[in-house]
């Protein structure tokens, strides 16, 4: 498969958005006038950055987690939570969270119905026509549609996270109906993301998209006459990336060592042995190149004649020769999902995606413990794991250490801003397109990773930096370079100025405050989760220098406020 490129590759064809789109439009107006009250507002906003409250509840959590009934004390605290558990905060979200508390919000989100599936949307838009058989048309659009507009933002955030752990890239699907393979895959992640890890793993393993991406689809038994061997691709990556990783782990995510060296989880021989389990699976159709693409939404099925003969092995567990393909698969997935590495290995990555790049060992251990047992003796309850991640004190207390928090990934920043300013697509087009171009866009686009190793690696340490000197992992920095920082700012300036396609920001609420720069910037900053007092002051002063005597001036204040906030390192580093 065409799966392995450099993470964070800049080497993309620059076929879009080449023209620099300056934002100096007719709507802009000059003006240099310091707006009174800016500094007062900054000081007020700083007061919002108070510690987490909600301690008087009866259903007290363990000492390291806040109670389910805990409530954010401030708007900024509420927005901070929403930035971890979802993408964005609205005034109504904040109000609901402050009155109902974290637990109720999570309950509501877990129970929320799914919006129109990717597959159904593509069909409704006509992308099932035969002319789209070898096309990705519509796929970027439907991904953006859900990320930006679906009300179940916790599910959307978790699905994005899972799509960066169980990576499939639409760029690496050389089959008919690749857009429906991708759509079916993301729909499957949505359906299983709040269920059990074991079910999720099976959904991933038997999905047509993963079958194509990591070549398990069509993998056949060995042939002694020709010397042909089973394909090892899925056997390797299901262990290295999807379940247990390369090193034996302690419960807190640290590597077990022997004589100072990490202990491997498996050998080459064990991969070769496991590869024989993953033989005989293919699409659930007799005509993979026909006009019917419905099989892309069904698990792959097994053909006994293509299944490897003889006994098989998954790690140290022997699968008897008598086991048929589905039974052998079940034993393999059961064994991997039951491995003690899974809790810390997957738990740490989910923490990294939602909350922080460098969770403490204790945080990982607490989440892994919930993975191992949700309190009812059930293992791999993803709902409980997500709850544990978000209600841990380490998540609920704003990070103050210089290594705390995480760089918001570029897709997250775009989606957060679009949700915050109520961007919609009146024509239901969502024509944002592929944002992979690092020089003119985000250097990242959903379901378009350069390889199964994702846009960034969980263990990435930025070289030549204080982070590197202190061995601090910061995965998203793998995408951060001299080109992408410029591409992001330029792209966001275009979006803030005029949106894209029929997607337009709604600045009504901002414009109502624009006469008072301090109120305007404070509102914008609060919705994004808060920034430092100094940054708030810098931005308020600059925005206040734009004359607000005309509608155009007010609009420029709004736009400048958003762009400066989106550019500020306080915002880009989620804490």
């Amino acid at each position, binding site marked *: *498969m065409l*799966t*392995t*490129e*450099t*993470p964070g*590759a*800049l*080497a993309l*064809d*620059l076929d879009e958005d080449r023209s620099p789109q*300056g*934002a*100096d439009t007719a709507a*802009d*107006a*000059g003006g*240099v006038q310091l707006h009174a009250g800016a500094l007062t507002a900054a000081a007020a906003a700083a007061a919002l950055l108070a510690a987490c409250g909600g301690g008087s509840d009866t259903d007290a959590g363990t000492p390291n987690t806040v109670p389910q009934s805990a409530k954010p004390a401030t708007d900024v605290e509420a927005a901070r939570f929403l930035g971890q558990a979802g993408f964005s905060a609205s005034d109504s979200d904040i109000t609901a969270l402050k009155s109902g508390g974290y637990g109720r919000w999570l309950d509501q989100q877990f129970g929320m119905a799914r919006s129109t599936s990717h597959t159904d949307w593509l069909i409704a838009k006509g992308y099932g026509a035969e002319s789209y058989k070898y096309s990705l048309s519509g796929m970027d659009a439907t991904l953006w549609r859900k990320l930006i507009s679906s009300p179940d933002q916790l599910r959307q955030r978790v699905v994005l996270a899972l799509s960066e752990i169980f990576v499939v890239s639409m760029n690496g699907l050389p089959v008919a109906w690749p857009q429906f393979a991708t759509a079916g895959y993301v729909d499957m992640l949505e359906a299983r993301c709040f269920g059990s890890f074991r079910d999720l793993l099976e959904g991933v393993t038997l999905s047509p998209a993963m079958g194509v991406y990591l*070549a398990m689809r*069509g993998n056949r038994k060995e042939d002694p006459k*020709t*010397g*042909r*061997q*089973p*394909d*090892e*691709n899925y056997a*390797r990556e299901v262990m*290295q990336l999807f379940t247990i990783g390369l090193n034996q782990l302690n419960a807190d995510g640290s590597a077990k060592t022997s004589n100072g060296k990490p202990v491997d989880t498996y050998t080459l021989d064990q*991969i070769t042995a496991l590869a024989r389990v993953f033989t005989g699976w293919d699409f659930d159709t007799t005509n993979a190149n026909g006009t019917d693409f419905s099989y892309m939404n069904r698990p792959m099925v097994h053909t006994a004649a293509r299944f490897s003969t003889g006994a098989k092995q998954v790690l140290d567990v022997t699968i008897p020769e008598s086991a048929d393909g589905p039974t052998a698969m079940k034993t393999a997935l059961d064994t991997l999902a039951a491995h003690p590495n899974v809790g810390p290995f997957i738990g740490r990555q989910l923490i990294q995606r939602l909350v922080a790049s460098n969770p403490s060992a204790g945080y990982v251990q607490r989440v892994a413990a919930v993975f191992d047992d949700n309190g009812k003796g059930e293992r791999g309850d993803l709902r409980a794991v997500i709850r544990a991640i978000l209600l841990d004190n380490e998540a609920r207390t704003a990070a103050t250490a*210089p290594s*705390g928090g995480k760089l918001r990934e570029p897709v997250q920043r775009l989606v957060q801003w679009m949700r915050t300013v109520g961007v919609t697509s009146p024509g239901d087009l969502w024509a944002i397109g592929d944002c992979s171009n*690092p020089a*003119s866009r985000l250097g990242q686009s959903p379901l378009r990773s350069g390889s199964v190793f994702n846009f960034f*690696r969980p263990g990435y*340490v*930025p*070289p*030549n*930096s*204080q982070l590197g000197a*202190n061995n601090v992992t910061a995965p998203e*920095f793998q*995408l*951060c*370079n*001299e*080109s992408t*920082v410029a591409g992001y*700012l330029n792209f966001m*300036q275009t979006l803030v100025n005029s949106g894209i396609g029929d997607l337009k920001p709604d600045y009504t609420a901002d414009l109502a405050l624009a006469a008072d720069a301090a109120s305007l910037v404070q509102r914008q900053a609060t919705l994004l989760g808060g920034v430092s007092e100094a940054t708030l002051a*810098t931005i308020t002063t*600059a925005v206040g*220098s*734009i004359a607000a005597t005309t509608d155009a001036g007010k609009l420029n204040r709004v736009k*400048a406020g958003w*762009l*400066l906030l989106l550019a500020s*390192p306080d915002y880009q580093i989620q804490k």
Partner: protein
Amino acid sequence: MTHVSRLASLQRREFLKHASALSIAGTAAPWALQLAAINEAAAATAAGDYKALVCLFLYGGNDYGNTLVPYDAASHAAYATIRQTLATPRDQLAATALTPSVALPDGRQMALAPTLSGIKPVFDAGRLAVMLNIGTLMQPTTLAQYKAQSVPLPPKLFSHNDQQSLWQSSKPEGAISGWGGRLGDRFLSGNGNATFTCINVSGNAVFMSGGQAVQYQMSSSGAVAINGVTRSLFGSQACSEALRTLVTGERSHWMESELNRVTARSISAQSTISTALSNVTLATPFETGSLAAQLNMVAKLIAARSSLGAARQVFFVSLGGFDLHDVLVDQHPKLLQQVGNAMASFDTALTELGVNNNVTTFTASDFGRTLSSNGDGSDHGWGSHHLVMGGAVKGGRFYGQLPSVSVNGPDDVGQGRLLPTTAVDQLAATLALWMGVSVSDLPSVLPGIGNFSQQDLGFMTA
């Protein structure tokens, strides 16, 4: 290092002259530079010469079996039997069969993949050499030692990300410096602007980060200006200035600090690069496609070397898609065609610029692959064949040991996965020596080089 002895007095001057440039480079104090590095850097500048190394990384693990194909009748027959449907038919290889200046042993012959025909003339002209069965090793290792695990082996063999990292840095994933960057460290003070010592036009690779050297990343279409900084922002100069302050200011939080350091570097380098490139004319045509665009940009940057103040540079370009567990027969030839044609254009461009003797390009990849087939592709392996190209390369021949064409043969750790007989460290050392690193200084670039008695493979002219 023939120039070092007469340059003692220059050392200090060069060092002071470039101390400010170095301070851009990173957190480590420039004072930590060793005297030897100053010597090497000063020599590079004083000689008025220029040398550059270009790493062309084939992401995913290139299939060695269909890149350099056994061509003599007996070897090809063995190859075809093992590879089955993956095998390239012998009659398709006649045009790219190689006639090396030093014959291969036992009457063996090898051919380039048919779609690598673009670089056959470069081989014939003596500017392209083939490195046989090269890969990651901690020390020379026999098959018996591998099986008994009686010597240290590279960690995480056969794993993409880790073997990419080992090739580039001698360590598995998580490494924070690579030998390209450490090579850059030796020459930082000799370059007028340290930022342009290590330039990556394909993304992010640990290969390019040194102890002090920072990899400067740019796109193959050039450096990108931040519009809100270079002009007024929504009509407001004050907002533009605020933007610059916000994205470049000092920060105490390490992540904020790093983000702003990258952005500050982006802003300062962009104007220099853009100005330098605006004066470049390069007539050599390159094909469309990602790799060609990257090598085209590298050629332009080399053409602009004086404006960039560069005496020694390391570049990184890459192409992905080589992890061909299936559709190998369909996809691999297309990828190799991009590689061969882009390399050929680059060779022509360097000749046009009059610097072909000053630039050496080498291929690298995660690992080789199995020789045996999994039906329509091959699986992760270890050793592989690679190419080194440039006017200073003693090309037109093979270096290293030609492996047997067999499964379970003397160099095979399983299914035709080659146990390397030449180490990446040895390739790196040979290139480092050519760049001007002294023998005694090699361990600072390649900490494990002491485990290999042959540190110069002899494929470069002095």
